[in-house]
């Protein structure tokens, strides 16, 4: 393969190279030509020309002054170079330092990416998810930065988020006491706000929604994880308390006392009251006798106020229950 790229020189080139090498060694041209009798004729011209070329170039020597002055500069520079300090040895850990620096940059980039990803995807996280703490941090920031009505709004969202989380966890049978405690805490915070300021209609609607959904979710939890009964009861009580507080001071009401059925126990049978207790009470009345009243009470309290025109007729009250019923 190498021969392909390095072809042998032609005959003339090879002979001329041989003859020229002998001439370079100082042999007389006539003598050299005598060594190549067959080629002497054409070789003579080439050797004569190359000899003339050499002579022409060497006939223009450097001046003695130039040669001497350059030599002295050369030697002086050599002395200087020898006197110059040895280059500092490379710090033995320099390479490691470089590696560490690049690793720290990469690590920082990874951390920033994870944090960003965590915040972006935290919206639907539930306790136990890797990014749940980002969700909590986000909520904390949001709460801290809010004031007045917007803080109430944030607090509503927190309570709704807790209910939603428990719903997701409950469907997996994975609710923990701390999750229920979180709901209880947020409900109490909402109650504190309810005591200090009057909720408007929209906020009351949201509160009712929270109460209804939490009743359904807590019943489901109670069924699937009976061991959490005390925590469930505490959370339900907290939500009830908020609803009571907020709805106890209704705005100028109309036929207020229209509905005070409060016949909790047989909620399943009677249309108005049976609305809320929904599946839990209907399905297993015997197993959760104590809880049912609580849940139904919640529902009653939420539903009771005759408030808005939509709520007045009994079918209007049935709506939340109806919406709650199919969920399980």
């Amino acid at each position: 393969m190498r021969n392909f790229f390095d072809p042998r020189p032609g005959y003339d080139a090879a002979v001329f190279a041989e003859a020229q090498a002998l001439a370079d060694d100082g042999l007389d041209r006539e003598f050299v030509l005598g060594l190549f009798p067959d080629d002497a004729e054409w070789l003579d011209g080439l050797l004569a020309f190359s000899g003339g070329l050499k002579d022409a170039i060497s006939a223009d020597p450097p001046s003695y002054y130039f040669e001497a002055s350059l030599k002295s500069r050369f030697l002086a520079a050599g002395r200087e170079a020898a006197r110059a300090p040895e280059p500092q040895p490379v710090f033995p850990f320099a390479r490691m330092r470089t590696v560490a620096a690049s690793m720290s940059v990469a690590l920082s980039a990874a951390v920033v990416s994870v944090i960003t990803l965590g915040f972006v995807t935290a919206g639907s996280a539930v306790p136990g998810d890797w990014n749940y703490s980002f969700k909590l941090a986000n909520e904390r920031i949001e709460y801290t930065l809010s004031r007045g009505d917007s803080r109430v709004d944030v607090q509503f969202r927190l309570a709704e988020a807790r209910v939603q989380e428990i719903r997701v966890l409950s469907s997996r049978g994975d609710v923990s006491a701390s999750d229920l405690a979180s709901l209880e805490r947020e409900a109490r915070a909402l109650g504190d706000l309810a005591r200090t300021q009057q909720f408007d209609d929209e906020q009351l609607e949201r509160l009712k929604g929270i109460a209804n959904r939490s009743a359904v979710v807590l019943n489901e939890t109670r069924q699937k994880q009976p061991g959490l009964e005390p925590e469930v009861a505490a959370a339900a009580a907290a939500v009830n308390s908020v609803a009571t507080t907020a709805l106890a001071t209704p705005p100028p009401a109309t036929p207020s006392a229209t509905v005070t059925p409060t016949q909790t126990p047989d909620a399943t049978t009677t249309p108005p009251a049976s609305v809320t207790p929904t599946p839990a009470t209907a399905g297993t009345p015997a197993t959760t006798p104590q809880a049912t009243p609580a849940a139904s009470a919640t529902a009653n309290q939420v539903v009771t106020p005759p408030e808005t025109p939509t709520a007045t007729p009994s079918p209007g009250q049935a709506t939340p229950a109806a919406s709650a019923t199919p969920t399980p």
Partner: protein
Amino acid sequence: MANQSVDTLAPEFDERAVVTAAQRGEQQALSDLYEYYFPKVYRYVNARLATSEDAEDVTTEVFLRIIDNLGSFSFRGLPFGAWVFRIARNEVVSFVRRQKVRGVTAELHEAIPDTSADYALEIETQFTIAVVREATGKLPEAQRQVITLRFGAGLTVAETARALNKTENNVKVLQHKAIAKLQTLVPRD
């Protein structure tokens, strides 16, 4: 043995030992290197450039470059002589490039009337070198490199091949072609 002669351009002395001593700054070693390489380098540069003044400037640059980089030279790569001529070649090329950028046209030597006794001889010599410069200037770059190293610096085919990073066969071919072409370019009596 043959390999050794190929790897060294200075068979007159132990090149490795001299270069090592020169790297330590020993004046005698530096002097030996200079004495050996100066005439070769100067002739090579002089054959490549238009005037002796240019040749002196570039030769100075070459030797200062050599001394600057001597400490970093190691025998693991090129032989020392090939390294020297590679520096020389680079300096010549960059000088020519600078001249082109400046738009300076190289002037050929002109005979300066002189009252000295060998006036006629000097005129003839200067004319010859001028013609050689002009003629080699018309050669392709590879052929010009070979001619100036072979007949200017006086390197052998093997040394020229090492300095130019070419094969010996390639150098033989280029040498033959260049001489044949120069014969047609240079008018002879």
